């Protein structure tokens, strides 16, 4: 298990969980809000990245897990690049998602979580992303059958979507997924 920095005297359970998951110490944040200023998507977020970091420090689990912020994050890494305290904010966003999914919290934007699941199921089974199959998988999870249907048809016509998956690496990815799951279970129990 990772050891906590000795400078931290007490901290919220959520901050500790984020640290354990990502190695990121949110207590280093002094609220300069560069992350919020640079975030291209903060206009659409209910809580700006700096506010979310603060809520993690304060242990406001309901606010953090109920917020759309982490699900809207596009992982553009602008916040991570600019943080003067070297907090990897994008990694904190990932950590919150990972913790939420592990705890079975309903994602604030379920279709983003559905996209992750559809994509991963696809990679596991096919070895490489079979985009058409992934999109069908996503639609079966979200019931948004007509979203982007026209765009998809046009992409097919242009030969931009493969109709048949290449299954060459399927056995490899299936094995990696299974072993990762086993290690994650072991890490949780340790």
């Amino acid at each position, binding site marked *: 298990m*990772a050891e906590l920095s000795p400078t931290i005297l007490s901290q919220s359970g959520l901050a500790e969980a984020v640290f354990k*998951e*990502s*190695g990121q110490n949110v207590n280093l944040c002094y609220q300069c809000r560069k992350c919020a200023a640079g975030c*291209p*998507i903060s*206009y*659409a977020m209910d809580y700006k990245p700096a506010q979310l970091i603060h809520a993690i420090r304060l242990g406001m689990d309901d606010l953090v897990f109920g917020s759309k912020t982490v699900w*809207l994050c*596009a*992982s*553009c*890494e*602008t916040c*991570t*690049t600019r943080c003067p305290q070297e907090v*990897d904010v*994008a990694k904190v966003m*990932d950590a919150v*998602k*990972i913790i939420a*999914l592990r705890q079975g919290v309903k994602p604030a*934007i379920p*279709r*983003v979580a*559905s*996209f*992750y*699941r559809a*994509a*991963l199921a696809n*990679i596991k089974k096919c*070895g*490489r*992303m079979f*985009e058409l199959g992934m*999109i069908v998988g*996503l639609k079966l999870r979200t019931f948004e059958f007509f*979203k*982007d249907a026209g*765009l998809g048809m*046009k*992409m097919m016509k*242009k*030969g*931009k*979507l*493969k109709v048949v998956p*290449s299954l*060459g*690496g399927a056995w*490899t*990815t299936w094995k*990696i*997924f299974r*072993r*990762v799951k086993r*290690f*994650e279970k072991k*890490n949780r129990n340790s």
Partner: protein
Amino acid sequence: MTVTYAYYPGCSLHSTGSEYDVSFKAVCEKLGVEIQEIKGWVCCGTSPAHCTSRLLSLALPLQNLCLAEKMGLTEVVAPCASCFARLKTAIHEVDEDPEVEGQLRDILGTSLPKSVNVVSPLELFSNGADVASAVTRDLSGLKVVCYYGCLLTRPPKVMQFDECEYPMSMDRLLGSAGIETLDWSCKTDCCGGALSLTETDVVLKLTRDIFEEAKAVGANAIAVACPLCHANLDTRQAEVEQKYGAQYGLPSFYFTQLMGLAFGVPADKLGLHKHFVSADGLLPDICKG
């Protein structure tokens, strides 16, 4: 001795971004760069992996680097910006965290590659390739803005490539190919990436900002180095125009397509016909001839 690069195309270059694949190979051929596709490569996991499992997000890229090493190759080239970032991140995190390194060794059932170096094609072609003397076609009508996007340069600690807030490698490369590039302020802005399928409105807003800025500086084309950027800027441009009542008509090219054109490669060999926003009006002699 010339280096042979292990080529990691990644999933997009075999489907939605196949133009990047064919044009990258065409440019390699013209510049005498040797590449060998990694045998049995698998998906790098991209955002769905790093947003849901740290171990998985590192195991998948490392698997590919192990395969490259088995082929006896230590230089890997990954054109897709997301693959490039995931491969570099995996190397970086394993270096930083011995505990996770041990777990990944067990998961992959092999020792991890020690001396593998991952580069983007921008880096590869900037490293002493004689671009200028391969040019056979005049593209002086083009006014291109170079759109690097997020992941080629960020986070700089991991990527260690170019200047993270104001990169110039693509500008210089296209400049050596006789193509005019313009200064603008959106070089490393985000297009919304994988939110395209789930939060489409965000992508439409972010790409609109990019088109507006490109138009404002007088560009007539955008050059990219990422299949996701290309999908958002090209396939969704009509949607952006409709939503915001604007008219952009800005063709987006992979920078390798522009280099290929400058080197005299026929347009159909570079996948130009696959673009949604046609370049026929911009390059009438090349696209129709």
